[in-house]
């Protein structure tokens, strides 16, 4: 049986970080998740990472762009937004190749993050 969903006041309050990444080799969604959680583990350890509540919720690939650009949205806890943001720039290498992550902005909703920072339509054109 599926658990009943928590009432709103008991749910974790969250924020959404829009990011873009460029790398020398193409990135998949699973790679991004393991990179971010690995970097967080290196910076804060298991205890600190457990408080951040990091997860990659959305992910877009632009295979035609130069430098294998990807965009995405990361979810994190509202109270730990600054420490979650500090994890993003510490990612430097993936399988021995260079990769860089840059945050575009912070939003309270996924929709807001897409319209304000990812800008799907302009990116497709």
């Amino acid at each position, binding site marked *: 049986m599926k658990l009943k969903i928590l009432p709103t006041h008991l749910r974790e309050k969250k924020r959404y970080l829009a990011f873009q990444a460029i790398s020398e080799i193409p990135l998949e969604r699973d790679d991004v998740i393991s990179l971010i959680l690995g970097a967080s583990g*290196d910076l804060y350890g298991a205890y600190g990472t457990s408080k951040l509540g990091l997860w990659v919720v959305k992910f877009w690939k632009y295979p035609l762009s130069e430098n294998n650009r990807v965009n995405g949205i990361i979810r994190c806890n509202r109270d730990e937004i600054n*420490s979650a*943001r500090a994890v*993003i720039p*510490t990612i*430097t290498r993936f399988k021995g190749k260079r990769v860089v992550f840059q*945050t575009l902005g912070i939003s309270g909703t996924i929709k807001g993050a897409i319209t304000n920072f990812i800008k799907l339509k302009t990116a497709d054109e």
Partner: protein
Amino acid sequence: MALHAQKLGYDGTALVLNSKDYKDKSAIIKAVQSIKNNLHHDCPFQIKVGLEIQARNPADLKKQVQKYRDKVDVILVHGGDLKINRAATEEPRIDILCHPYRNRYDGGINHVLAVKAAENKVSIEINLKYFLLTRPNQRYRVLSQFRQIVKLQRKYKFPLIITSDADSVYDLRHPQDIIALASCFGMTNDEVIHSLSSVPHDIINRNKIRKQIILPGVRLFNNGDPGS
């Protein structure tokens, strides 16, 4: 890379050369000019030329500073050795002392050097690339070195500058990310903004009027008025 930096919201970069590469300067300046033409013209983006001096000993350092001071915009010193750190902080003609903590276990500067750096307005550099490219199991050491420098900075008020030391787009970070990262070694938001924007600005402004300064505190004006 400069185009990318502009997208991230930076106002300018300093192109830092090694003293060995200095002879190819004319080719590099041509490349800089072509980049400048490609930039968007509506917002000003500055590219300054800097030189990183790698000195073997303090006497060599003084000689090289004398040689290059008038030729480039910013003078940096490759720190790490205690004697070089000491000589660099005592030299008012130097702008930035790079990574005094390089290959060391302590911060590389103590209270004596901090006082000297504050007197001579030599900026101490916090090098993000050095932190990010250190192996994860060694990063604690770099963080504690940065924390020690920040602690000395609060007490002695020498200028502190945060640099990316980028040689490709893979080293550039968003300014807000840097602020978040700097909170890991105990800097507040205002301190980071100060060291990212005001300190480089001061260095550039100071170097513009450097030729007019005769003695510390005395400045020569073109129209013959005695400056003070």
